[in-house]
């Protein structure tokens, strides 16, 4: 299997700002790949480099082993679903979906038929005659998807495609996107700042921080074995234990991450922590704890009973859940 997208030492600077700094990356064919990071971390710039809206300051970008940094966007067999969908307001839904075919001069009857098929694929059959402004946010999102997929791209790029949807719709669309990707076998590259979205959808994740990739791996790797303090903090808001505490508790050296849900409330024999805040989340309760002077987050089930703010409680965890961060 050859990589669908390869970055070799790619940089993109805007003046003195290093938006993307010497990134190496290989996205496999047929993969559902997520680029995760806070805003300004360079993930969207990477996506725009693949699409061709930006040109690299240095390095080489390949799509299916073909160097493409000198190829304009309209000649790349890559399509994008934009964050705010960018549907053309002066065209009907069907004309929007058929836009790529119209550009390629496919005859009108055939392209409208293909557009209808693409709309059926995203469960919007019969909506072709409407205007984008008459659709809901979720429907526009599907139209944008159909429009980007009709040209059968080698790679589909999605820029925070679910960001504008409400929670329930977002969960539905996550499932639908995954099914669609499996059915079509097209490489999806997906940019998001929402770690739960990345974890639930992607085959692999690249975590971006300040223009560089902090870690690439499967969702399980990223979640359970963060390689840097940034990844531990950003993904799942892990507790980062300072080196002194780690040595005191386990005798190992280095800092370590501990997931909030790994912490249990026990009757006795654990570590004594002071509750500084609590919030009820429905299925669980989030506690902010003060343990030996360090702030901790714990996500505990509701069976532990009631606890007062300012009161001490006993907490414990399995040593195996404490993941030592390498190179720290």
């Amino acid at each position, binding site marked *: 299997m050859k990589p669908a997208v390869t970055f070799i030492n790619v940089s993109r600077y805007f003046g003195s700002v290093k938006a993307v700094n010497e990134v190496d990356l290989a996205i496999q064919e047929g993969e559902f790949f997520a680029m995760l990071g806070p805003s300004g971390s360079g993930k969207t710039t990477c996506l725009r480099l693949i*699409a*061709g*809206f930006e040109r690299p300051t240095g390095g080489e970008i390949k799509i299916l082993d073909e160097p493409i940094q000198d190829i*304009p*966007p*309209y*000649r790349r067999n*890559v*399509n*994008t679903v*934009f964050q*705010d969908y*960018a549907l*053309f*307001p*002066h065209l009907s839904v069907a004309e929007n979906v058929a*836009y*790529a075919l*119209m*550009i*390629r001069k496919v005859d009108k009857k055939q392209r409208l038929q293909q557009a209808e098929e693409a709309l059926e694929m995203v469960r919007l059959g019969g909506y072709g005659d409407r205007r984008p402004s008459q659709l809901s946010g979720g429907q526009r999102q599907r139209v944008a998807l159909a*429009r*980007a997929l009709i*040209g059968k791209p080698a790679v589909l790029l999605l820029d925070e495609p679910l960001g504008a949807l409400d929670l329930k719709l977002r969960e539905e669309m996550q499932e639908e996107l995954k099914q669609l990707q499996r059915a079509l076998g097209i490489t999806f590259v997906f940019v998001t700042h929402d770690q739960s979205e990345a974890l639930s959808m992607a085959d692999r994740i690249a975590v971006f921080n300040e223009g560089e990739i902090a870690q690439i791996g499967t969702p399980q790797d990223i979640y359970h074995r963060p390689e840097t303090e940034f990844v531990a903090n950003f993904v799942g808001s892990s507790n980062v234990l300072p080196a002194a505490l780690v040595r005191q508790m386990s005798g190992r050296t280095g800092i370590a991450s501990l997931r909030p849900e790994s912490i249990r409330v026990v009757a006795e024999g654990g570590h004594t922590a002071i509750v500084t805040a609590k919030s009820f989340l429905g299925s669980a309760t989030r506690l902010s704890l003060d343990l030996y002077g360090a702030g901790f987050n714990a996500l505990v089930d509701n069976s532990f009973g009631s606890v007062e703010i300012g009161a001490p409680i006993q907490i414990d965890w399995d040593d195996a859940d404490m993941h030592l961060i390498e190179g720290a």
Partner: protein
Amino acid sequence: MNNSANDRRGAVISAGFGLAGQISDVFWRKPVILLLLMLTPPLLWLGVVYIGSLLALLAQSFFSIDEFSGLINYHLTLKTYGELLNPANLDIILRTVLMAAIVTLASVIVAFPVAFYAARYARGRWKALFYLGVMLPLWSSYLVKIYAWKLILAKEGILNWFFELTHLKWLLDAYLAIPLIGGNSLSVSYTGTFLVFLYVWLPFMVLPMQAALERVPANFLEASSDLGATPWQTFRNVLLPLALPGVIAGSIFTFSLTLGDYIIPQIIGSSRLFIGQAVYSHQGTAGNIPLAAAFTVVPVVIMGFYLWMAKRKGAFDAL
């Protein structure tokens, strides 16, 4: 008890705005009064004084003039409109409409790159410079500008001098030898009239166009190129349709201003009449108000037809 209730009342409703405050309160409770107060003066001005006199003018066009006495005959007739159709008058109308159309087309072509640059790329200082550059000509007197152009285009003018200097005089002479658009010099040719019209009305095309282009989100252009469209195809299929309301707005200005102008063709050009000049001479020296009125109706009808066509072609769909 009573006292403390009063105290609390003061805590809820703040007093002390005086008469102006009470007037504001009335407006807040009855917004219609404010609306009437604001709209009545302009409606009186526009509706009665302006539209009223326009209608009076329209009425005049249905009267006729007695050829012997030169007095106006107040019987409704279409005779004056019939006169519009005689070859000399039809010639004037055709010349004016053709000139207005060519000036409009040329201003679209010249204005687009300027407006596009200003809308897409110019920021801060460059944007200010753009507005200044476009508006500055509007601040100086229209007559001064036209006479300046006369000097530029005249046989003794700077353009002629430049062509001589570059040994390209033969090129200019060859151009001036072309019938219809040529002439003795640029300042007495239709080309001269066209150039000055184009210069004088260009800001009225640039500004609405720039406003329209500014409203086209940048990612529409990216989306189009992402879907395989070359820059030219993106221009044809996305940018132009979305900027069309601005182009139409600008063209209404350039077209109608050219249709009605009577000074430029009088100073620069072949001294053949345009509609504006015909109106001017008929209502002045000739005293033929009905024919002047009928001539005035022509641009109104043409503009009405133009807007109707533009609407049918979907020019305002993107609004």
